[in-house]
């Protein structure tokens, strides 16, 4: 085998490696550049927005049911992905009632 063939093979191998490594590098770079917010389960380290100063936003203020009592500010498991407390939950869910209205079964 001539020296030229060896050089050609090496160049071919390098070319193939570069060709197929490029998408991998691209994906790895794109993954590394994703903001933390795009990873919903990533814990936030900065101070989250608390809605404790807005009692009117909590369902309890509107309906007063105990199930919708405002979450304690120190309960991190109740924070949603953007650091907000889960507020604005309908107190009555007709579709989970024993007398379910017919519209609950409407499918598009």
């Amino acid at each position, binding site marked *: *085998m001539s020296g030229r063939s060896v050089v050609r*093979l*090496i160049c071919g191998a390098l070319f193939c490696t570069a060709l*197929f490594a490029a998408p991998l590098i*691209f994906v790895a770079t794109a993954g590394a550049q994703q903001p933390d917010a795009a990873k919903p389960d990533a814990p936030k380290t900065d101070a989250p927005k608390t809605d404790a100063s807005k009692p009117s936003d909590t*369902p309890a203020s*509107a309906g007063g*049911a105990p199930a919708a009592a405002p979450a304690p500010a120190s309960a991190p498991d109740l924070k949603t992905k953007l650091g907000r407390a889960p507020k604005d939950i*309908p107190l009555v869910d*007709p579709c989970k009632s024993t007398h379910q209205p017919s519209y609950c079964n409407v499918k598009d």
Partner: protein
Amino acid sequence: MSKTEPPSRSDRLSRVLSYLVAITTILGIPVGLYGYYSSQQANRVNRTFDFYKDFRSDTLQKDFSLLVEQWNAKAADVEALLEKNDEAGLGQLVTSLLQSDEAQTALAQLVLFFDETYSCVDKALCDNNAAFALLKNPADQIFYMYGSYLTTVRQHNPNYATGILKVRGLSKSWSLL
């Protein structure tokens, strides 16, 4: 009969290099394709998350909160109507909640938002599973509260609030990526 000569060193090197090229090619194509589709998938998820961020923006949260607050203010009435199995009464109550311009605007904004979201998912520009995880629950909540009104309007205009119904009907799909 001639004797076959043992392969020379350069022949062996040539063969090894040939194998390397073949292996790189065979492995490289699927890996490259996987990388390409992964990046496409990541873009779809990001786009869906942008919709979720829009939903969590102050404007839409204000609209959503208004609708929930109005509903919660009538929680006792709703329970009473449900106990009596009075669907017509519930429909009237919901319609009365939507009499104000503010409430109408809030519902219209949310309907438009979910129409856009579902359009994105339907055209495969957004990720089905991310939409399912992030936006199905809010769509469900809106429908639980104002479903009687939405279905009434849909009897005359079948395209109204299709996004809300479609998003609440999303299911998790299996994906390699």
